[in-house]
Each structure stands twice: as structure tokens, then as C-alpha cells.
């Protein structure tokens, strides 16, 4: 986990990140919490897909395997009262923002125990009490909305920051560009977090753009464009902390490209057999979780046995949360017609 410049290895081009060599580093307890969150995300992700493959429950799902550091590193650098907007591939963001495993599983399964009581589902996990304000299933559409959250904070004069994550493929969507221009113009406290996993569904990045480094897209708008290794949680944390500091101080938005190559298919059931095997193997070998775990051990922050114990605990938590969701009640049918409008306003029949 050095913090010098390095080749992030994406797309075989030499893309060097722009992070300075003086990162913020959180206290040890926070580091351990970050590790624990990454582990929780990983185990929840794996367990949910295992349930799907075994037929424990029906459903669909967008894996976050491999992007644990990318998601957790950013959100760990934010405050609990900061706002966040994410996508269908949002489990890591949602858990990092503090949502409970049970509420997340509940929503994935469409149960009353879900954070949206099962009405939103896989692509719409939101937990406004924890600042997880909105999850969109439409590629790129969260970015203009993040600006509005940033604007609300700016007008109120509080120093809340808004983060919004989106995939690399979302950089081809017009709404993002409108959002970047507006965020720059109004110096909004927004961090545009591009989770670059080098794929948009079945299409590799080189097949959909000639842009070398996606963060370059931000520059002409007057927004700093930073690219970091998304498998290195400390590097991600450091760059997000700088972006947040800048935003809080009124310095405006940052575009943070977090490169973490995709390891699995686009969604559960997609084997990813069209992906280059060697590249996938390289990404797998560069797993952010053991990398961070080894570092914690090497630094003497935790012992190997402590991490093993933590793993056992998290497995247990995941298991119990999933069980609560599987056994959770379904919404009564008359709720079909509620929540279209405010209570008391009739839904047209």
C-alpha cells in the first residue's frame, strides 16, 4: 500500500494517477473498520450469489466483487452525514454508508424488512437516514441529482459533501456532462466517483471510447480529474479525503476515477466468458481485501488471528441477516397503491 505513483495497469496503457504523496491516513480503529466493511461487502456479495445459484431464493443481482476498496475507500473518507448517490451495483456503497445487512438483504429479496420495504428492490436501495439518498438503475442519471444534493448543502451553508458513484460506461451518457459543467460552474461540493471496472456490461472500455483516462473528461470543465488504483483502499481513501476537503472548503467538485478491473460477469448468471482470462486472473490475484489485510498485519495493526476471528464473525452476521431477510414478510397487496403520492392522495385506478 505505498502511495507513490504507480501504473494502475488499466487497459495496458501507462496511466499514472495524480495523487500527491502526502495522503491523509485514518486512525487504526478506522482502518480496521474499513477492512471489516470490505470483508462484510465481500461476504455478503458472495453469500447472496450462492443463495441465488443454490435456488434458496429467486432474484437477480449485480456483483461488487473486486470493488470493495474502491467503494469503501471513498465513503470512509466522508462523514456519516454526507450524502451519497449510487447505482444498481450499489451494495458496497450502501453498506459502506452504514446501512444494515438485514435491510440490504431484505431489499434485495423484496421483503418488508428491506430498506425500501421491498418496493424498490435490487436497483433502488436507499437509506436516507444514513445519507444514502438515491440509487438509480439508469446509467449516468444519478449525477445531475447529486448536484442538487450538493446545492442544498451549499445553500443551507452546511459543509456536507455529496458523493455520486457511477460506472465507466456511464461516461458515455450526456447527463454526466451536463452535471459536470453545472457542478463546476456552481462550485458544488460534489465528488464524481467513477468506478472504472473497464467494462460496460459486455463491452470493454476500448470498444466504447478513445479517451485514454476517463478523468481527463473532467478537465475542460474546470474540474480536477484524478485517477487512482481502486484496489488500494488507502490510496482511494487519500484521494477521496482530499476531494472531500476541497469540496467542504468551497473549492468545488472533483472527478475521481477509481480503477478496479471487473472480475465477475456483469450480473449474476453472466459467466463473463467473453472477458480475457489472463486479465481476470491478474485482477483476482490483486484482490483488495487480502492486500489490505496483509498490510494491516505487516503494520502490526492487527494480528492474523484477529482478522480470522473477524471473518468468522462477519460470516455469522451475514448468515443471520440473510436468514432474517429470507424469512421476512412480503408487503401486503394493498400496498401496491400506496407511496405513489403522499398519504391521503388517491392513486388513479
Amino acid at each position, binding site marked *: 500500500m505505498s502511495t507513490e505513483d504507480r501504473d494502475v495497469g488499466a487497459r495496458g496503457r501507462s496511466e499514472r494517477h495524480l495523487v500527491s504523496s502526502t495522503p491523509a491516513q485514518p486512525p487504526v480503529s478506522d482502518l480496521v473498520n474499513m477492512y471489516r466493511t470490505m470483508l462484510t461487502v465481500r461476504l455478503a456479495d458472495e453469500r447472496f450469489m450462492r443463495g441465488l445459484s443454490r435456488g434458496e431464493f429467486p432474484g437477480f443481482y449485480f456483483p461488487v466483487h473486486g470493488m470493495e476498496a474502491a467503494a469503501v475507500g471513498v465513503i470512509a473518507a466522508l462523514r456519516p452525514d454526507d*450524502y451519497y*448517490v449510487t447505482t444498481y451495483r450499489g451494495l458496497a456503497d450502501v453498506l459502506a454508508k452504514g446501512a444494515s445487512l438485514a435491510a440490504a438483504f431484505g431489499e434485495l429479496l423484496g421483503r418488508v424488512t*428491506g*430498506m*425500501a*420495504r*421491498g*418496493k*424498490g*428492490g435490487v436497483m*433502488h436501495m*436507499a*437509506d*436516507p437516514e444514513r445519507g444514502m*439518498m*438515491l440509487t*438509480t438503475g*439508469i446509467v449516468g*442519471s444519478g*449525477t*445531475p*441529482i*447529486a*448536484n*442538487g*444534493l*450538493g*446545492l*442544498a*448543502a451549499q*445553500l*443551507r451553508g452546511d459543509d456536507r459533501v*455529496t458523493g455520486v458513484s457511477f460506472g465507466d460506461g456511464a461516461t458515455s451518457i*450526456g*447527463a454526466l456532462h*451536463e*452535471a459536470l*459543467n*453545472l457542478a463546476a*460552474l*456552481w462550485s458544488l461540493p460534489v465528488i464524481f466517483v467513477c468506478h472504472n471496472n473497464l467494462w460496460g456490461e459486455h463491452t470493454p472500455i476500448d470498444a466504447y471510447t478513445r479517451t485514454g483516462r476517463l478523468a481527463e473528461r473532467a478537465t475542460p470543465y474546470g474540474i480536477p480529474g484524478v485517477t487512482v488504483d481502486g484496489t488500494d483502499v488507502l490510496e482511494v481513501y487519500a484521494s477521496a479525503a482530499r476531494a472531500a476537503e476541497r469540496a467542504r472548503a468551497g473549492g468545488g467538485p472533483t472527478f475521481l476515477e477509481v480503477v478496479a478491473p471487473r472480475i465477475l460477469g456483469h450480473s449474476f448468471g453472466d459467466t463473463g466468458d467473453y472477458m480475457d482470462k489472463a486479465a481476470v486472473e491478474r485482477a483476482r490475484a490483486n484482490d483488495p481485501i487480502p492486500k489490505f489485510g496483509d498490510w494491516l498485519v505487516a503494520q502490526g495493526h492487527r494480528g492474523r488471528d484477529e482478522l480470522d476471528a473477524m471473518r468468522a464473525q462477519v460470516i455469522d452476521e451475514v448468515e443471520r441477516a440473510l436468514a432474517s431477510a429470507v424469512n421476512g414478510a412480503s408487503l401486503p397487496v394493498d400496498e401496491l397503491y*400506496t*407511496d*405513489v*403520492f*403522499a*398519504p391521503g*392522495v*388517491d*392513486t*388513479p385506478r
Partner: protein
Amino acid sequence: MTTTQTTQTTQTRELTFAEAINDAFDIALGSDPTVLLLGEDIADPPGGVVRLTHGLSTKYGTQRVRATPISEQAIVGAAIGAALGGLRPVAEIMLMDFIALVMDQLVNHAGKHRYMSGGTSHLPLTVHTRIGHRRGAQHSSSYEAWFMHAPGIKVCVPATAADAKGLLLSCIFDDDPCLYLEPTPMVRSRGRTEVPTGDYRVPIGQAAVPRAGSDVSIITYGQQTPAALDAAAMLADEGISAEVVDLRSLVPLDHQTVLTSVAKTRRAVVTHAATRFAGPGAEISAMINEELFGQLERPVRRVASASTPVPFASSLAQAYSPDASTIAESVREVVR
């Protein structure tokens, strides 16, 4: 069923339709610090391309009355986010044709958010735009029917200065996304009528009956309301008593007022400036037929704009939208 409904005051002053809208914005901005206006060219000068927000950025500052880049998606997205962040934003989109650019933000995001969040969050935002301009195919359209078929969005279309103010204030202070549509002929009109002062609200979802009658119900809204009233006046001279129902809101739709009127007159003509095929009149006609089957003397007629793009040539533009005499002619056929 009410013609007007006042929440706090009965004092009035004479305002044009546009001034009444400006007054509503002024009152909203003045009374609630969370109200925020954003849109292209809405700050002074010019205070909106048709000056609906004239003077407001000067009075309340360009932080709260914000001119934006030409970025419709970013505008509506910012309104959604601001609503989520606790404000009551009002976004101006210059013309309803440009609403085509924000269907994703409006329909997929604003309209569905309360539902998708299981009621844990909601979006008190207003988008206002203009319909019925006469500037050819891409600047004149009326697509309110799309939003009747896009769950989660309320739709209001005022026809008088008082309703313009009262509905707009209701939209701004409503806890759901509201689409507020200004008919261009009214926005451009120089005539002044009585408008209650202060924080006057017209409840969303309540039709008005600006003219009572017994032989036939003319159901309408927006720019066709004065046309319907003119038609009713013409018909009165012929001994036909037409009741005019001004819907004012399309979502929620005031079924009760419509059905009460038609149950009485047993004849209905629905008229609007939106195109006919699959327009708002289709829902209203279908609903009347469902609810009053067997009680009608004649089939419900729809009198609406041609199901074509809006033509530019004035010869065609004249023929495109029904006027008072077209409405009257349809009424005669129904009453005869």
C-alpha cells in the same frame, strides 16, 4: 366542486396571468427559505424569457433564483437532488417540447422515487413549462397526456390568473413532484383579473365550474377554458345551456366534479389543445362512459387539436386547434 377556494384571505388585486405567476413565486420565496428557482435565463435580466420570474433574482438573490446553462437534464436533476436534500425547488423548462429531454429525470426518477423508496423519502419539487406556443412543430406541443400515464407526478394547468397563482403555490408547497403547465395564450394575455392577495392556494385535484348549465357539459382545461366559455355564451343565445368544467388538475383528476356535471346534463364534450389521439380526452371520455353508461343521451365527443405535429403555416395553424366555434358546433351536434 369549487370555483375558487381561499385559505387565508379574500382581498384581491388585478393581475395578468403572468403577474399572478410572478406573485406566487414571490410569495413562495418570501415565505419559505427552502424555495429555490432554477432554469435558463430566469434571473434578471430578463427574469425569464416570458418574464415569469422578473425581478425575483434582484429581490431574493441569484443564489435562490438561479440562471442555469442550457442543460435541461442537469436542471431537473438538480431539482430532484435539491428536493431530496430538503429544499422545495422549482425548475423552469422553457417549453414543453424540451420536456422530452428530461423524461428520464422526471418520469424515471422524480415520479418513481417515493414508491421506490417505500415511502421513506419524497420529492417536493415543481417543474413548470409552457404549452401551446405558436412556433411550429418543436416549440408548441402539449404533452400533458404523457404525464397522466407516468405514475407519481401531479399535473396542473391553470386557466385563470387566480388559478395560476393558487395552483402554483399549491404545487410548490406540495410534497410530491408537480408538473405545472402554462398555456401560452394566457401567459401572453395583457388582460387583468382579480387575484387573491397573499398565500392563496387552489387545491390540486379540484376542478372548477366557471359556468353552470343544464343541457351539456363542456369538460376542458387550460387554453380551451376561455374558448369553452365563449362557446357556452354563443350557445346560450341559441337557447342551449352549457356547463363548463375547468379541470385545473389532470392528476389527480377530479372525477367527481366531472361525473356530477355529466350525470346532470347527460351530454359531454371534452375539449383540449393537446392532440386528440390518445390525449387527455381519451381518459376522460372512457371514464365518463364507464361511470355513466346508460345515462348518456349522446356519445361523449372529443374536440381537440389535430393528431399531427404543430404546423407552422398560419393557414394550417388556424385549423390545427379547435376554437369556440368548433366547440359550439360539436355541442350543437350533441344537443340536437
